[in-house]
């Protein structure tokens, strides 16, 4: 009897020690990014890339997107207390390379957008704890002090940011 019990005990311990649910897996949907897609203002169903786009969060030196020609971006949202509406400002600069090409006839163009939303905390799992999703998302293009705005229009297509499966905001340019 003893001979049968010992391997059984060992097998049980191995089986339970293999559990890896104490590490938050990368594939788990946690706090999402804001997804913005760029469309052609003349043909609003047609995605249109932005040439040499650089995105930074206002007040931060690091770039979120660096001189990339793309038709969509993922932006990290800052947040504090649950239920308190908060805004994040992003600087979107297109034609970044014009700053350094030494040609005076062309220049980069920076527009500032303000995204406001209300964080809501949701329990995920033992390993990941809580995530934040964002409700009531709104976008505003700051046009004051900017006489050359390249973002013609911006629309919130998904007011609740809870995953990264589809765009939340469309920008037309």
């Amino acid at each position, binding site marked *: *009897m*003893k001979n049968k*019990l010992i391997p*059984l*005990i060992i097998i*049980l311990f191995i089986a*339970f020690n293999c*559990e890896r*649910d*104490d590490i*938050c897996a*990368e594939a788990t949907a*946690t*706090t999402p*990014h804001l997804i913005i897609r760029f469309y052609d203002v003349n043909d609003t169903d047609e995605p249109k890339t932005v040439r040499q786009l650089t995105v930074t*969060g206002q007040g*931060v030196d*690091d770039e*979120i997107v660096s001189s990339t020609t793309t038709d969509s971006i993922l932006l*990290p949202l*800052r*947040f*504090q*207390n*649950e239920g308190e509406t908060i805004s*994040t400002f992003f600087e979107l600069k297109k034609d970044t390379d014009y700053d350094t090409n030494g040609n005076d006839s062309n220049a980069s163009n920076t527009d500032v957008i303000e995204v406001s939303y209300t964080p809501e*905390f*949701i*329990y*995920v*799992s*033992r*390993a*990941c*704890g*809580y*995530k*934040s999703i964002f409700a009531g998302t709104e976008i505003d293009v700051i046009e004051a002090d900017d006489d050359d705005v390249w973002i013609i229009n911006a629309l919130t297509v998904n007011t609740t940011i809870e995953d990264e499966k589809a765009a939340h905001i469309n920008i037309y340019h």
Partner: protein
Amino acid sequence: MLCSITSFSQNTSEQEDSKTSNDTLVFKQKYGLRLGIDLSKPVRSFLDDDYTGFEINADYRLTKRLYLAGELGTEENNLVTDYLDVTSKGSYFKAGVDYNMYLNWLDMENMIYGGLRAGVSTFSQTLNNYTIYNPDQYWNEPFSPSDTKEFDGLSAIWAELIIGIKAETLNNLYVGLNLQLKGLVSENAPSDFENLYIPGFNRTYDSGRFGIGFGYNISYLIPIYKKDKKVAKED
């Protein structure tokens, strides 16, 4: 050899009867209530700052092999990860049977047993502290809300399979080890949270309804009556 015994018994059936009484040893077996504690819990309480627990257990011998058994305990466990700090606190009760699979020699009364239990626990969980999981720390603003959340009136029911040993080390004093495999039958969990640790069931797993536990028991038998155990004497 079997044939020879059969033929032998057929021929001398009268002789066989007298032989039985001569060659059978009779041992007095103690029946009674065994009371004990799970030593691993006070030891862990002493060593582990995040744990406090105590369990008393008892069994009552019904037949030669069958025991009525139960445990009553209380536990407080603090789970601390990078993103959560949760205290579970409550008490539990388990009841069931143990079946001794071990054929004892002579007058020994040790056990290698398998057991079944139904367990029930009532408890609370307190979220002392938490940090919102945000893998993109571009803004460098990890946020930990200052509120604590309390989830009261939680409960769970589970079934348990036990294997273990109990050995009599001194007269009527037993030490034992056991391993418990648990299956959650039902639980009352908060709607916006989950039961991370259930007193008596131990920690839960994301991947299923199973749990595991072990015990290191020391117990004392209070003999109530004795019963004969007949053992055929071997030549």
